[in-house]
């Protein structure tokens, strides 16, 4: 698996404990409520949503997050082209009725806020920035743990997964 060097350390990688996960969810819920936002998502730059709080049902969070991470990659390229040393701090898209605000939390993580047109942009910036600081504090305190993948994915799981795939793929 590809990971950035600062994501792994001697075979260890960041694993969010249950307690940390709930801390993050709580922070996201708080932001969502204060902004009356449709969704607040904490995601990694590989495009995986890690934790989120939603009010909407009609948005595919996995796809939204993949696109958000892709947008960051595209704009990082733009930053490079105009000789910006750092990436752009935030990306904002304004729609007819909904807006998206995305912001770096660290090199590896981002936050995505989906909100209604009626919410003042200034509020979104201030409160999201405040949330980012809280999330950064949590990330700083995280300890690296060995990932318990083999326990999650045992031999039986692998073989059942293979069978499922063959069925759906019409193979064998």
């Amino acid at each position, binding site marked *: 698996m*590809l990971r*950035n060097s600062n994501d792994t350390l001697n075979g260890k990688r960041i694993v969010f404990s249950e307690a940390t996960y709930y801390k993050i969810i709580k922070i996201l819920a708080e932001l969502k409520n204060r902004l009356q936002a449709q969704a607040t998502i904490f995601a990694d730059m590989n495009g*995986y949503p890690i934790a989120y709080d939603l009010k909407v049902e009609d948005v595919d969070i*996995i796809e939204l997050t993949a696109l958000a991470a*892709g947008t960051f990659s595209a704009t990082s*390229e733009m930053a*490079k082209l105009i000789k910006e040393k750092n990436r752009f701090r935030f990306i904002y898209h304004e729609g007819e009725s909904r807006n998206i605000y995305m912001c770096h939390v660290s090199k590896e993580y981002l936050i995505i806020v989906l909100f209604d047109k009626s919410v003042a942009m200034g509020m979104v910036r201030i409160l999201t920035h405040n949330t980012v600081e809280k999330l950064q504090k949590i990330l700083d305190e995280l300890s690296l743990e060995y990932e318990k993948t083999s326990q*999650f994915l045992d031999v039986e799981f692998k073989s059942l997964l293979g069978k499922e*795939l063959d069925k759906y*793929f019409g193979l064998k």
Partner: protein
Amino acid sequence: MHIDYFRKEIQFKIVYYGPGLGGKTTNLEYLHANLNPDIRGELVSLKTKDERTLYFDFLQLKLGKIKNKIPRFHLYTIPGQIHYSYSRQIILRGADAVVFVADSQPVRMDENLETLADLEKKLILHKYSLDNFPWVLQYNKRDLADSMSIETMQSKLNFLNVPYHQAVAVNGKGVFETLRTAIELLINKI
């Protein structure tokens, strides 16, 4: 790979790499059109004419619970054009396996080789290399009359003897087989 212990999901990322116009997007289009809609998402396709070009295609597969866990696969294609080099590097981040879609036309061999060399360069940036990373070769466009022999393609591209499939992505030949092999490789690597 990302494990979501709370939703009991395990997510994998597979990246379709290869020269521009080799058939990467076509692979995803075929998968999207032919998979049971219950297990796949929409094809998020960002074509260059789009006003906000984001430079990749994305398709997710989500299987039902297996031993109480939900496996998900996120499939991405990279943009072939040289000036999107940095995007390619970022899309490759966190990949668990790569499908290298090679174009079988003789005039495209140089580009196959250049793109493979580019993949190796990007893997090294992520502290991997072609010989310790799960990847599969797909020789695409086998339907074209002037396509090179498999022996030629093998000798030029498959110096590491990785699994390969012959394909005609436009009609689906080899598309499922290639993805299946990529998944097999990444699972065995865990």
